[in-house]
């Protein structure tokens, strides 16, 4: 069985800018594949290339084992997508938007199905409301309903939780998990939030300035034994000096603001008690999970990247 998505040496150049640079990755059936990168890293461009919205400058994209270029329509029939903000026809109702895109995906008008999909995203009660009256979260949910209406085996979600409130974010997360678990969908989800990927994806790829940084199992990449811990003390210079005289010295990172240690989270209590013993005034100790920090942890140890790639 071929991988659902197979991307080989994909590049895209816009004028002088190389937006995507020799990117290769593979998404297998049933994966929730996290596509992680900062804004402008090339995530959206890549997803647009997967949807044939943007033409690659070079490289190959195969979806369901078929070349995207030569089997565009048959592939797109089996793909559902939410790309960035879910912009829909503002002057049409939720139901009309859904029906319109369902028709474009080859579906016949089916009121029960459409209402079911709207219900799934909690919009059944607003089916006839014009989209221009919707909040960002409602639009987002309608966008997801549009992506799912034709029951595609592959779903591409570009920043699906952007602009949602905490409850909305949790709802979407649950929906993504259940789509994967209960319906066996393959999902590619992009985000600039590490936590988001961590909570939903089983595999992930980190992209930076158009290039692949790492690709692999989330559990392996986000290994809790190598977490970055941020230390905030009364006097960082003094604390740094004191740490140099202890067994913690090899774990202290040389870059970044304040003091950071790359360590097993289980050892945090031990670190705190040592600091207290050394009479360091501890203000806070917190495990860091921002993408920037994660990049830092990757880039501070050259050669480490290869170790993670499969």
């Amino acid at each position, binding site marked *: 069985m071929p991988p659902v998505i197979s991307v080989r040496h994909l590049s895209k150049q816009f004028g002088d800018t190389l937006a995507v640079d020799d990117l290769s990755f593979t998404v297998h059936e049933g994966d929730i594949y996290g596509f992680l990168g900062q804004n402008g890293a090339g995530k959206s461009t890549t997803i647009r290339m997967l949807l044939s919205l943007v*033409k690659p400058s070079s490289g190959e994209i195969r979806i369901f084992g078929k070349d995207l270029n030569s089997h565009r*329509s048959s592939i*797109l029939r089996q793909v559902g997508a939410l790309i960035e903000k879910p912009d829909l026809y503002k002057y049409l109702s939720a139901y009309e938007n859904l029906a319109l*895109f369902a*028709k474009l*995906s080859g579906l016949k008008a089916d009121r029960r199905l459409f209402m079911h999909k709207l219900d799934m995203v909690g919009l059944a009660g607003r089916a006839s409301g014009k989209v221009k009256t919707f909040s960002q979260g409602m639009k987002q949910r309608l966008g997801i309903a549009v992506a799912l209406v034709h029951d595609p085996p592959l779903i591409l979600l570009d920043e699906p939780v952007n602009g949602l409130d905490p409850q909305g974010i949790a709802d979407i997360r649950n929906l993504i998990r259940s789509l994967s678990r209960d319906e066996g969908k393959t999902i590619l989800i992009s985000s600039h939030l590490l936590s988001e990927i961590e909570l939903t994806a089983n595999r992930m790829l980190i992209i930076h300035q158009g290039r692949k940084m790492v690709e692999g199992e989330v559990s392996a990449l986000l290994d809790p034994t190598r977490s970055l811990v941020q230390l905030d003390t009364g006097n960082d210079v003094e604390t740094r000096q004191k740490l140099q005289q202890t067994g913690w010295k090899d774990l202290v990172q040389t870059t970044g603001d304040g003091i950071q240690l790359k360590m097993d989270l289980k050892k945090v209590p031990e670190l705190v008690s040592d600091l207290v013993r050394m009479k360091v005034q501890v203000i806070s100790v917190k495990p860091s999970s921002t993408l920037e920090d994660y990049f830092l942890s990757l880039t501070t140890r050259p050669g480490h990247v290869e170790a993670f790639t499969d």
Partner: protein
Amino acid sequence: MWKLLQIELFKIFRKPRTYIAFAAIAAFILLIQLALLVNGRQYLEFMLGFLDDGFFIPYDQINNGYWICFTILNLLLIHVPILVALVAGDIVSGEANMGTLRLLASKPVSRSQIILAKFMASVFYVIALLFWMALIALVLSLVLFGANDVVVAKSTELHQIEKADVLWRYFAAFGFASLALIMVASLSLLLSTLSDNSIGPIVATVCIIIVCTLISEMQIPLYDKYLRPYLFTTYMLGWKGFFYIGVDADGQTIKGSLQNGPAILKSIGVLLAYIVFFVSASVFVFRKKDILS
């Protein structure tokens, strides 16, 4: 394809903007009709007054429904391209601006089909607009003012067409006007595929038409020789050709004839060529386009 066209038409006719044109046309025509109902004679005296010393001019008979429809078309058709651009210029770029284009283009329909469906929807819109115009300008004028021979003023000639010989000319004129406006729509469509906001293509279409009309009508020999034959605006007035009647050797008008049929045919050919060019270019551009909106 039919499905795509249905969807495009659904989108056009659910958009409030679409109806601006219908309302504007109705308002304009009703204003002219009211004016001619009250001051038609004065307007005609202004137009034909210089003939007064040589001929008895039957002003009240000239001021009839057929003549009023011609007057309306003469004043209005020059401005309708703006209304066409308002919809056709928005048809791709408006979706890019709204953000729906990426959703549309990631559906299992080819880009060429999307553009062709959008073009056909614009054609449908143009025809609906002209049908509306015909209904008010022709049918309502005939109801209000009755029918009689139509007298059409050219700059050096007056053409009189007998009542029974008029109606087919209106059908032909509306048909020709559709073609001219479809040409405008195809130009707007091309500009629309090149832009990600809707104002640009609408304004650009209008500017292009204004500049070309000026060059066509300025009567400068240099332009007349080297530019005028190639501008589409030269051919857009061809609908009037149906109201220029042919005469026999004796100087009498020949019922059912045209003064310059070949010029109309040539105009139809030129407009069709422009349409084919603009639509092909739109398909080409849109197929190549990276959709980043």
